[in-house]
């Protein structure tokens, strides 16, 4: 389960739209329990509409910030400009960490489709994206 506020979701989508015609991408910083504290946009250093690569400088900076703030890099987001929000064979094969959340943003539909997955040893499982309140805390009924 990934907890994402409306503002954070908007940031994800805006980052990906801004990256067009290339795939947009970035990292998710938050807690090990899957609560996103910050969305970190990254240049797509692959500069491609078909593949993405997170800027290594952004990776370094984000991991250091995670250490400094007692947070974790809990995942990555990227867009598919013309295909569904589902991990491709490339996404599955190159998934760097089985503990991560993999967020896909499809810009093939309007409004953009945002979905989150776990990818463990080649197996893809969609997970619930829970909306958070403005404080970043999970909404309590």
């Amino acid at each position: 389960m990934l907890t994402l506020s409306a503002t954070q979701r908007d940031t994800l989508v805006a980052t990906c739209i801004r990256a067009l015609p290339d795939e947009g991408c970035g990292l998710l910083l938050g807690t090990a329990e899957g609560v996103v504290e910050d969305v970190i946009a990254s240049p797509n250093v692959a500069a491609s509409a078909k593949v993405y690569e997170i800027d290594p400088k952004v990776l370094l900076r984000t991991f250091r910030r995670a250490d400094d703030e007692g947070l974790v890099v809990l995942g990555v987001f990227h867009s598919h400009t013309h295909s569904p929000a589902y991990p491709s064979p490339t996404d599955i094969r190159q998934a760097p960490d089985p503990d991560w959340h993999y967020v896909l943003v499809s810009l093939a539909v309007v409004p953009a489709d945002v979905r989150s997955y776990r990818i463990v040893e080649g197996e893809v499982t969609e997970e619930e994206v829970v909306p958070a309140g403005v404080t970043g805390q999970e909404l309590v009924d």
Partner: protein
Amino acid sequence: MSAVLRIPTVLRPAMGGESTIAVEGSTIGAVLAHVTERYPAVKGQLLNDDGTLHRFLNVYVNDDDVRYLGGVDALVSDRDEITLLPAVAGGAQ
């Protein structure tokens, strides 16, 4: 020469579970040779067969990306902090 190697979470289980280890070597190549001898399971994720850095591995010495410092020939000094960062990549294709 003793530097500090910061190990990414994903490699820790195969590298003794630590987040940092002390390493020896005056170049990145020497450091990684020392590391892969100690932890052979990670060799394929760090180095190509010809001894060059794996395409999907980013290595930083302090704030500098070693691909601009000669790759495996990049120099390592005492008390340097070496960070291994597996690349994060994928895409619709």
